[in-house]
């Protein structure tokens, strides 16, 4: 490996490749150690890579929009005076851009995207001639839209990419009308892969409970006068989940190498639906934080999620995930476990329901449906029932949540 | 019309001693083949001619150099009767490079164009198709094509189409049906409507039934058939009634035969019969014994050399020859 080649750094412990979002220096521009060099979108987040030593950007090999595998050359650098002595080799980059190592601290991801990516991303479907043409022109196949049958990349697509013409949408005349291919982003591809893996490998089962959140609703109404930031219903759920996890450590586990590993910290991941992807940042030590702190944190995490400004650590630290679709009016749903976690909680919308009161009458209460999906290799029906039961009690008698 | 020949052995003892030798060789050869098969030296399957020797030998004895024979998968007798080298024949069945077809053919496909054996045809009726075409060509040179087939073949498409074809075009083809009573494992009467000979009679082809256990009668009948065909009169049908001593193939123990049937036929065995006829005609019994001795010695040599012969080396074979 030559020192004057900048290779795609490992900016996420699960990435196998990443896309250049923007070069923050231009060819010929010098930089100092610590200065931002290039913005890269990994499977988890968009990260700014900073120079590790002084130098100058000599030539860009992978332009903005292009994708490179881990360890592949993305630029040529030189000494700050233009000589060839250079940038320290990027550390933590494997010599081969092949398999990534599996990270034990899995990324907390939404129902689906997980940390364990296994082998590298799938090979682009391209014809032999297209492949050769792309290699000759230094064009990355992964960034191309294929307009051949089945979406495969053909020579014409490579030529268009070279000339900068916009990739045409692949249209076919079919019974279903014109077809528009929607290419997945790197993150989207990862999520797709992880979802399939979760569904096929984990023997999951669901338990459902209806939680009366009327007290929480009332507390929130009261809090509006007292606090600047009123915790959302979900914030209450996060706190309750954290306490329930503390009481039922089996659910605060990862299933790895054929057996559960319990974690000593309770980090509850919250699923955030951004424009491009579903991300799950973690609220660390949620059992120890006050509800107000959690409220502030979830807002801040969500905002940064939308800007793709989450750190890899924040995306890999969850020990359990909470997913809430109540704001969309969804009555209930089943979430997909994000391996290697052993459970995920799906929260539905509040519904006004008639409930028998203690005095034999009927009252309308605010009820939400909770669906807990569990990994049957790690926990069993009774365990799930007890966990969900604890959770429900905490939500229906929320004093413990606010203390 | 059934033909009974008049023995004229006395006038041709030399010839008939040769025919005797030919039959003894075929009988011994087939016994050797059976033995080698049981020892695993001959592969796949093979169909033995034991018991039917008089037919092949009698017919071959009247053929000229310009004539040809198309045989069936039960064709060793015809091959030997036509003069195919016994060593090359055995080696072919042993799968050796020195086999008459280099190991490519095996028992069921043996051919030796130089010896007038057009081929052995494994598809029932195939020999009839081949002989039809051979007859078409031989017509120009006055030759005759003989197709050998069994009683089962008279129900095959080839038989009807070709017999008609030869009759209409007056081709010089002798249709030699070796009726040994069984088509594979089934008695021929169970699968054949009417009589065999009448099929030819229906097409106005001369048809004769002859005792296939007598080489004298076979020779006489074959002479008439061949002369008829060679004379431009079209095909001739010969039904030789005979019997095979062993099962259809080596995989068949012949258990479907009624008890006593085999013994009854063995009493009519063509070889001791010819021996009697030779001695009655004045041939010295010692001369006859000598033949047995020679053949035995030859068979021992065939076996020894055959088992020592090399196997062929697999090598790329051009598809269209050359």
């Amino acid at each position: 490996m030559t020192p004057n080649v900048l290779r795609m750094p490992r900016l996420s412990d699960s990435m196998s490749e990443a896309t250049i979002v923007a070069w923050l220096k231009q060819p010929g521009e010098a930089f100092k150690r610590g200065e931002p060099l290039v913005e890269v979108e990994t499977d988890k987040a968009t990260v700014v890579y900073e120079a590790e030593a002084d130098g100058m950007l000599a030539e860009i090999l992978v332009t903005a929009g292009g994708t490179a595998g881990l360890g592949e050359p993305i630029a040529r650098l030189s000494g700050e005076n233009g000589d060839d002595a250079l940038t320290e080799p990027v550390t933590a980059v494997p010599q081969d851009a092949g398999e990534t190592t599996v990270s034990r601290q899995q990324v907390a991801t939404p129902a689906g995207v997980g940390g364990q990516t296994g082998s590298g991303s799938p090979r682009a479907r391209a014809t032999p001639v297209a492949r050769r043409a792309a290699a000759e022109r230094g064009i990355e196949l992964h960034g191309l839209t294929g307009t051949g049958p089945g979406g495969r990349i053909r020579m014409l697509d490579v030529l268009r990419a070279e000339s900068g013409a916009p990739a045409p949408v692949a249209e076919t005349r079919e019974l279903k009308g014109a077809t528009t291919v929607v290419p997945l982003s790197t993150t989207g591809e990862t999520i797709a892969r992880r979802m399939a893996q979760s569904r096929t490998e984990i023997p999951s089962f669901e338990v459902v409970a209806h939680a009366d959140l009327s007290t929480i609703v009332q507390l929130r109404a009261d809090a509006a006068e007292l606090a600047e930031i009123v915790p959302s219903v979900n914030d209450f759920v996060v706190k309750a989940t954290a306490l329930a996890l503390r009481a039922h450590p089996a659910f605060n586990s990862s299933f790895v190498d054929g057996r559960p590993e319990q974690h000593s910290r309770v980090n509850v991941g919250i699923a955030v639906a951004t424009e491009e992807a579903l991300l799950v940042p973690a609220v660390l030590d949620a059992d120890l934080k006050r509800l107000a702190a959690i409220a502030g944190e979830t807002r801040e995490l969500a905002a940064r999620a939308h800007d793709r400004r989450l750190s890899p650590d924040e995306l890999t630290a969850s020990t359990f995930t909470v997913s809430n679709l109540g704001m969309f009016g969804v009555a209930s749903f089943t979430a997909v476990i994000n391996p290697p976690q052993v459970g995920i909680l799906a929260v539905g919308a509040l519904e006004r329901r008639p409930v028998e009161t203690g005095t034999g009458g009927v009252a309308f209460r605010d009820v939400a449906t909770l669906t807990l999906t569990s990994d049957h290799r790690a926990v069993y029906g009774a365990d799930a029932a007890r966990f969900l039961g604890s959770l429900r009690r905490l939500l229906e008698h929320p004093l413990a949540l606010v203390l | 019309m059934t033909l009974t020949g008049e023995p004229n052995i006395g006038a041709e003892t030399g010839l008939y001693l040769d025919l005797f030798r030919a039959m003894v060789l075929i009988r011994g050869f087939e016994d050797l083949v059976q033995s080698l098969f049981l020892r695993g030296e001959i592969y796949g399957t093979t169909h033995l001619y034991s018991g039917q020797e008089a037919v092949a030998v009698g017919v071959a004895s009247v053929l000229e150099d310009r004539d040809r024979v198309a045989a069936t998968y039960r064709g060793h007798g015809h091959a030997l009767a036509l003069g195919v080298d016994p060593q090359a024949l055995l080696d072919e069945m042993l799968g050796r490079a020195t086999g008459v077809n280099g190991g490519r053919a095996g028992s069921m496909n043996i051919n030796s164009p130089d010896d007038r054996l057009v081929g052995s045809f494994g598809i029932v009726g195939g020999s009839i198709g081949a002989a039809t075409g051979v007859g078409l060509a031989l017509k120009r040179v006055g030759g005759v094509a003989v197709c050998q087939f069994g009683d089962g073949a008279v129900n095959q498409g080839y038989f009807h189409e070709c017999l008609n074809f030869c009759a209409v075009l007056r081709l010089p083809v002798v249709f030699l049906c070796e009726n040994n009573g069984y088509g594979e494992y089934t008695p021929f009467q169970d699968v054949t409507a009417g009589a065999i000979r009448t099929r030819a009679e229906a097409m106005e082809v001369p048809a004769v039934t002859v005792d296939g256990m007598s080489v004298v009668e076979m020779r006489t009948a074959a002479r008439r058939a061949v002369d008829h065909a060679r004379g431009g009169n079209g095909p001739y049908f010969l039904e030789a009634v005979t019997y095979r001593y062993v099962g259809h193939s080596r995989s068949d123990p012949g258990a479907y035969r009624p008890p006593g049937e085999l013994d009854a036929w063995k009493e009519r065995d063509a070889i001791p019969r010819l021996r009697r006829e030779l001695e009655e005609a004045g041939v010295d019994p010692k001369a006859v014994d000598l033949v047995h001795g020679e053949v035995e010695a030859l068979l021992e040599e065939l076996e020894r050399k055959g088992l020592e012969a090399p196997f062929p080396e697999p090598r790329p074979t051009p598809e269209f020859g050359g």
Partner: protein
Amino acid sequence: MTTTIDFRTALREALDEELAGDERVVFFGEDVAVAGGVFAVTPGLYEKYGPERVFDTPISELALAGAAFGAAISGLRPVVEIMFGDFLTLVMDSLVNQSTKYRFLTEDRVSVPIVIRSVVGAGGRFGAIHSQMPVSWFMGVPGLKIVTPATPGDAKGLLRSAIRDDNPVLFFEHKRLYGVSGEVDDGLVPIGVARVVREGTDVTVVSAMNGVHEALRAGELLAGDGIEAEVVDLRTLRPLDIPTVLSSVAKTNRVVVVEEGPLTGGWAGEVLARVTEEGLGDLDDAWRIATAETPVPYSPPLEDAFLPTAERIASEIRARVL
């Protein structure tokens, strides 16, 4: 010397010249002699060469094939007509089990110089069993050549080559080409050699027989869209001239094989398999256009929709090139 004649006349001239040039050549089939053939391909030959060389036969395809085989291995060079390719099912045993195997079984001693001419193809409203393209039934038979001319010039030159070839040749005449006119000269056309009949840079269209004409028409249609198709007329389907196809694909990077016959098991698959194996690096696109997996229907709109027409070829190419 070149003349402009139609396909059927070209065939008759070829037969005439070969009958004249080699007295071993004979020609027979059903209604080919006195009647001159049901497609009027061979009038006059019977009168010119007489019944020893040119003759009619009974309706006995199997006997025909057997006769051709037997004659071919006995010194003649038979040309046989099987009226419709659909009837080749009836000659299968002799053609496949006798003719194509004999050279191998005799270790190259005896070859089988037969030619079976047969009329094939759809579009004539002849229905399911008189319109088939039996090429794929025979693609897997080693030792058999399959010749498929598209033009009168190739019909004559290839039939002459076929008759002079020492191996079995299936010679297919597409029934819709009989009236097509073209230039014909005195030369022989080699078997197993394809020809580029239209040059282009954007896609290689490979076909044979009537498909070549459809491909050429498609080429005209595509030129209007700025797509230049290169059309390869295979002329022989077994053995395939893959090098010619590969040279073309090296230039165009796209190959479409147009076969009048069902997709599954068709010869187009064999072409693509070879091109993929040997020219993978040159491929940007590769596909087949063939007929549906049904028998050939009778009613004109049904049959026309069934066939790979120029419009369909052009439309598919347009969709994949643009």
